[in-house]
């Protein structure tokens, strides 16, 4: 595959870093939010401008500095990175709008800090998407961990403090304790950390050592929330909703999964995983997380916690897809990055909108709310269909491909897992929708005058819900990118 050297990937990372001083120095909220908006749009445009190049079969490369012999801080834009960058940068624009509505609606404190770290976190996310080697990926992964800490603990109270502790302990503990040694051992085995199509570990270590590395990496990227390293995610739900929405449904967790996918394909390589027969291990871990996560979600009353457990389960779909090691399974997994992002962010937006409008967090208090907030709850309904994997929503495509993939890989138990999980998804989402629209008696629990949240909150969630639907009929460019990536990995 031919490469082009261009500074664009670096620009895409830097654009939101550069806006931080502007955010800090801007005096009025309007100016500050305007800058956020400008940065978000600029970032999206830069990312989008690289899309045709990637579609034409080129890779964009940019080296910043060689820090360790054979390893540089280096960016490479390929199909998978493009897919992820496109998802996160487009959702940043939407979330910025939503943040403005949410933060103003609740008159939150320290909004400048909030927008600054949000911008930082987005830089790190794009950095992860475009990293060309494991070191660069680790760099931005850690940057994201620390940049999101002030966001998660935004409220600065006891609860935020203990959640923040848990968050850091899991995320940083695993990345230093597991990923760092794995990275160093890989470097000493192969002398490089550059992601390659076949994986750079191929033919360097024994099955046992490779297995250890695999375990370290799969669990080490704890942002992917694979059990038993998942419990930071529900804890992190103390954050303001836009943070939960973008970071804990899209950026942070997706960075985790993206890293796992990237390492499985670029470091180990599909062929190595097949020849050492590691697929079943990944499938087992992912399936267990899917089922357990869904079951726990069933028992939640706090809407954001429910969504958190749902996220844990959904993330493992992506890992599962790659673990199937069959082309269609992998395509399904990668497309699910996009599909789940749009669906889940809508759900979080809805939860936030309900909180802004009514101050309610628990599902049991939301009975009959559909009458007061019809637009929000309709969006909620659409998004939950998408997550469940039902038409007319984009989630259907990814699940369909996962099913095809498991058939292709002759993994019948996976089929069962997918089926049960879909049923469970329906079982925890549909009652919410039903109660919201069809149960009237409790409507008295809302104060008079409760209606839709401010337009800044509602418009974004309508947009993302619509996109979720459109993606079924027009899944480009995400599907094309995933397809390209899988073809280049499998060589077919």
């Amino acid at each position: 595959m031919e490469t082009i050297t261009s500074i664009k990937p670096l620009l895409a990372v830097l654009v939101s870093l550069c806006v931080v001083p502007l955010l800090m120095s801007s005096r009025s909220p309007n100016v500050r939010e305007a800058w956020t908006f400008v940065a978000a749009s600029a970032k999206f445009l830069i990312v989008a401008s690289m899309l045709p190049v990637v579609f034409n079969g080129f890779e964009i490369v940019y080296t910043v500095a060689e820090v360790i012999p054979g390893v540089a801080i280096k960016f490479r834009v390929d199909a998978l990175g493009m897919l992820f960058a496109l998802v996160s940068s487009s959702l940043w624009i939407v979330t910025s709008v939503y943040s403005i509505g949410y933060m103003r609606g609740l008159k939150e404190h320290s909004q400048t800090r909030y927008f600054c770290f949000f911008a930082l976190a987005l830089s790190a996310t794009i950095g992860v998407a475009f990293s060309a080697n494991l070191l660069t990926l680790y760099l931005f992964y850690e940057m994201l961990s620390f940049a999101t800490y002030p966001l998660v603990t935004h409220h600065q109270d006891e609860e935020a403090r203990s959640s923040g502790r848990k968050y850091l302990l899991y995320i940083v503990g695993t990345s230093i304790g597991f990923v760092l040694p794995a990275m160093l051992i890989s470097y000493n085995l192969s002398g490089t950390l550059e992601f390659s199509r076949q994986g750079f570990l191929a033919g360097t270590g024994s099955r046992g050592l490779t297995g250890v590395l695999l375990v370290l990496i799969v669990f080490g990227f704890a942002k992917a929330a694979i059990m038993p390293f998942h419990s930071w995610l529900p804890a992190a739900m103390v954050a303001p909703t836009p943070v939960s929405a973008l970071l804990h449904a899209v950026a942070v967790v997706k960075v985790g999964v993206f890293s796992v996918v990237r390492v499985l394909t670029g470091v180990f390589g599909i062929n190595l995983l097949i020849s050492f027969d590691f697929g079943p291990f990944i499938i087992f871990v992912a399936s267990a997380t899917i089922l357990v996560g869904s079951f726990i979600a069933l028992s939640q009353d706090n809407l954001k916690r429910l969504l958190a457990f749902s996220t844990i389960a959904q993330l493992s779909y992506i890992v599962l897809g790659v673990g199937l090691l069959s082309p269609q399974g992998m395509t399904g997994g990668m497309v699910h990055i996009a599909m789940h992002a749009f669906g889940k962010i809508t759900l979080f937006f809805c939860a936030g909108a309900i909180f802004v409008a009514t101050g309610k967090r628990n599902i049991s208090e939301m009975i009959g709310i559909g009458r007061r907030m019809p637009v929000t709850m309709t969006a909620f309904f659409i998004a939950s269909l998408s997550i469940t994997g039902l038409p007319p929503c984009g989630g259907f495509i990814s699940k369909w491909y996962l099913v095809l993939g498991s058939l292709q890989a002759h993994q019948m138990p996976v089929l069962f897992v997918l089926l049960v999980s879909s049923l469970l998804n329906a079982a925890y989402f549909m009652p919410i929708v039903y109660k919201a629209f069809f149960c009237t008696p409790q409507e008295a629990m809302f104060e008079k005058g409760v209606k839709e949240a401010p337009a800044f909150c509602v418009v974004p969630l309508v947009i993302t819900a619509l996109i979720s639907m459109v993606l079924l009929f027009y899944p480009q460019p995400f599907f094309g990118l995933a397809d390209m990536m899988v073809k280049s990995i499998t060589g077919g």
Partner: protein
Amino acid sequence: MSQHYPALLVIVPLLSAFLISAAGWLNKRLCFPIAVAALSVACFSSVLLLFQVLDEKVVLYKLGGWSPPWGIAYSVDYLNGLVLVVVSVVALLNLIATQRNVEQEFSEKIGAFYTLYILFVTGLLGIVVTGDAFNLYVLLEIASLTGYGLIAMGENRAPLATLNYLYMGTIGASFYLLGIGYLYIVTGSLNMADISAILPSLYHSKTVLAAFVICIVGVWLKMAFFPLHAWLPNAYTYAPSAVSSLIAPLMTKVIIYVMIRLMLTVFTPKYIFSTLNVSDSIVWIAVIAIVMGAILALGQRNLKKMLAYIIVAEVGYMVGGAWLGNRAGMTGAILHIANDALMTLCVFLVVGNIVYKVKGYAFEDLKGLFRKMPFTMGAFVVGAMSIIGVPPTCGFFSKWYLISGAIQAGHYGFMVALLFSSLVNVILFFRVIEISYYEPFENHHGQESHPGKIAEAPLTMLVPLLIVAAGLVVVGVYTGDIVNHIIEFAIPKGIV
């Protein structure tokens, strides 16, 4: 002019120390500018000297024209060229950054303070630049004696802590002197290069072994290598803040340089790693040092002492890395001398700023500091990241080389210790960050960004601090160049 840089480096600060002393009597306001000028010259010459080394490999300066081994020679190669730059830059930055601290903490003794300060730096620069083993002892004592004086200027418990430091430091230096005496008995020379040329035929001599053991123990005492660290935490804690941020980054690091110099130049790697069969055990002691340093740091309830124990652990990093016996480990140790000096400077300058505004450094004094001093605390976070080892700060890269060395040497204990210490550092620093970020608890809901009262340290303190913090990232990004162009040549070819 250009051939005199090695001498200028030492002479200019030495003479200006006397000038400052005189100025202290006449007009106290003159002291600071003279000190800055002296260290700027030193800084300037050390940087030019490094460039000269990059061209000529070794710069030899014969003091008084006497050629070695009879005369004292200053010899600068890649290894001390790098360390010289680190020492002079750190000393200069700290001098500027702590001017206000000095005025606040002992305004009457400004003359004495700056005299000692410059003499201390002279001593350190001399230790690094000299190629003569006995000369090193003298300069070591100059640095130590002035160091005692500086530390003793601190608060209540400082004199006693200094006295304990003095006992241990004197024993350490005396041991070093004794070891050099044994080396002199067998080789008849005090010039480092000369000794290493004579030694190979004497590798199996018991006297050389005795010399080696005594020297190394002396040096360990001075660098506070666990379990010989007992003097360090109190001395560094009770010292005035302007002194802690000078001595903590430099003293231990320079002594580690001395150890590496002894290993690489005086006793030669062949003797150290092949003839003696001790490197594995020493790395294990380093492992214990790292683990114990980390654990002891966990038990502290004040910021300065916590940082002091982190230094004990960091010393373990460098000693362990140097004794791994491979190129990666040695690279890590040398790189960490520079990186650790910078990051320790960063965090201790933060302490200086906090002391300046809050008059305390116990954990309870840190409450609400993120709101009050956002830039200082921002720099603290960067320093903390570097000590934890988060890329792209420089601390990550030295840790990378150290762990890489451990893997290559098959010494997994050392690898685990380094990872353990990183994790403990996360806890240590985030405990501090939590206190200064959350407390005092308030209910923030429903308050549109209420006016936080920012009470930052003055710009003269803040700007150097931010430069250091930015430097941590810049040095991190340029690690590749530092290793490829300097450290690569500092390590003898024999070590692979």
